[in-house]
């Protein structure tokens, strides 16, 4: 009880710094937990980690030496400590498949996923927010029902199935977009990699033919991810807007004769924007998950495809490294949305 009173006093004195410190401590604990979970998963694998290093024809003495090198003779807690030290220096071990450090592999594939997810979340926001506002304004009427059903379809369709159908219709039958992959081979060496985001790189280097090719590759998977994030964003926008439109300041504005479009798009949406930022950050994180299946369907050389490839080849180090990176990004985005919420809404800030 005493501590509660003390923190209460502190929070009045230094609200933001104190809140940030508490948040950071909890995030640090979550990271430690993430590491422990991946560590444990790695330990229960039926594959003998020594055999994957030395092969099954090694002599007993070689086996024993590697067994000790890998630290498998030490107690579990000590092994975890070694694992922690390695992870913090960015060492996830070598990939069994590519024979390269996993960190290098992940850094190489990550921009592809980032580009796809960013494009997707931009599309989802551009479409989802107006649809959500529309549904809220026309609550209970046809437009509302249509938006609701479109959203529920997004929640229900398997993303890999829609992706395959999309490829069948728009690539194979209609020929409107380019097929699987990120870029045609003929353009691949045109662009000098700078940011790793190919759309950005090609535009900055003025390679417009390559840019068009990349765009025609990315548009289908990005629209797909965009549809799924739109389903979520429009539903949340609707509920935030309904909340705002019932507030007294809306009535006051109406009484003063403010035009209805201004009340909706300026007064109410601005207040709904704060929780919306959180929702958009969360849906961005959700797209990381969607990207695993989407990338498999579209042969997109990103983190999701790397993860599934490693899985299918029982490359456990790579799987755990990839899982950990996705977990870290996920927690990071959650943290970011929390902080943004506090920064953007003075009411939350004051409450501490």
């Amino acid at each position, binding site marked *: 009880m005493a501590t509660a009173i003390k923190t209460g006093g502190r929070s009045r004195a230094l609200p933001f710094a104190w809140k940030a410190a508490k948040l950071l401590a*909890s995030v640090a*604990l*979550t990271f430690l*937990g*993430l590491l*422990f*979970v*991946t560590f444990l*998963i*790695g330990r*229960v*694998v*039926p594959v003998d980690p020594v055999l994957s290093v030395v092969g099954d024809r090694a002599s007993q003495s070689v086996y024993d030496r590697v067994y000790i090198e890998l630290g498998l003779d030490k107690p579990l807690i000590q092994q975890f400590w070694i694992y922690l030290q390695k992870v913090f220096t960015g060492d996830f071990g070598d990939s069994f498949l590519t024979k390269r450090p996993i960190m290098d592999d992940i850094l190489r594939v990550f921009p592809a996923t980032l580009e796809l997810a960013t494009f997707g979340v931009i599309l989802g926001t551009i479409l989802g927010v107006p649809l959500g506002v529309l549904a809220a304004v026309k*609550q209970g009427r046809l437009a509302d029902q249509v938006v*609701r*059903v479109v959203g*529920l*379809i997004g*929640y*229900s*369709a*398997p*993303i*890999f*199935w*829609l992706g*395959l*159908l999309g*490829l*069948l219709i728009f690539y*194979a039958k209609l020929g409107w977009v380019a097929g699987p992959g990120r870029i045609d081979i003929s353009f691949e060496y045109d662009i000098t990699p700078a940011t790793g985001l190919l759309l950005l790189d090609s535009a900055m280097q003025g390679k417009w033919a390559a840019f068009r090719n990349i765009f025609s590759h990315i548009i289908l998977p990005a629209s797909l991810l965009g549809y799924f994030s739109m389903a979520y964003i429009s539903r949340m926008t609707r*509920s935030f807007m*309904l*909340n705002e439109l019932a507030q007294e300041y809306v009535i006051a504005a109406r009484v003063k004769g403010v035009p209805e479009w201004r009340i909706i798009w300026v007064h109410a949406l601005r207040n709904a924007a704060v929780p919306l930022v959180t929702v958009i950050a969360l849906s961005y*994180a*959700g797209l*990381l*998950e969607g990207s*695993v*299946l989407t990338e*498999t369907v579209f042969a997109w050389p990103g983190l999701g495809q790397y*993860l*599934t490839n490693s*899985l*299918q080849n*029982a490359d*456990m180090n790579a*799987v*755990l490294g990839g*899982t950990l990176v*996705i*977990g870290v990004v*996920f*927690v990071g985005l*959650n943290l970011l949305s929390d902080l943004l919420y506090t920064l953007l809404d003075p009411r939350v800030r004051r409450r501490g």
Partner: protein
Amino acid sequence: MTATLSRREWLLSEQPASRRQARLGQTYRTWLALRANPLAMIGLAIVVVLIVVALLANVIAPYDPIVGGDLRTERLLPPSLTHLMGTDEQARDIFSRIVHGSRITLMVVALVAVIATPIGLLVGTTAGYFGGWVDTVLMRVTDIFLAFPRLILALAFVAALGPGIENAIIAIAITSWPPYARLARAETLTIRDTDYINAIRLQGARPVRIIWGHVVPLCLSSVIIRVTLDMAGIILTAAGLGFLGLGAQPPQPEWGAMIAGGRRFIIDQWWVVTMPGLAIFVVSLGFNFLGDGLRDVLDPKARK
């Protein structure tokens, strides 16, 4: 007068004479509200059809789901009257496979619900009831599980346990319980300090008895709604694992694995991929419609 009451009037009575009448009346009112929602009724119909199809799979399916027909003449046939949804690359009737696959889908949903709900309830009510460091530790663990996207964590677990439908179910259950624990904890916090719980405590009941006998039953209904809402997500995760080759193994007629199997033929034999995907889509749409309607009826706070 009472003798002439219709069943409807008895159910809607404002002065129920017994606990049973009150409970049945409440259920009847929920049903009436649900019936007024067309989407929810469509959802309910889909779920009922799924259950019937799964129960009567042997009667409904015209062909064997595992053993195909003549490989020379019956491979990859387009949909027709003899094969409603066509045949796949091993000359198996796709309609029969989808009908039998409904059993796998239903089993996954039921088992995940049966495994994950008690875990979530136990963790959530324990954390909420005891508070203090027990609460901190349990909720921290819950947060760690919530920190992974669901499919990714399930992937990692399946990678560790080995592919297969049983392991996929375990992995999905392990990744499903944290939201239920959160919910059960929030409910417990509002129940914990009520007079009736205090009264039981004063009678000398132990915490285990209070939690299982008195707190859990009160949390159950909201957790069950949440589980219903999650079922479409469970189906999609299971199908995703199947698609990646980590769930049900061939020749089991699991819908996600069937889509993966048909990928190679998509351009010329579109039905091999389309039909099982349609099945997944319709079933999860059904669960979503039903869950959405149930939430509107049972949780007035979300109804806006």
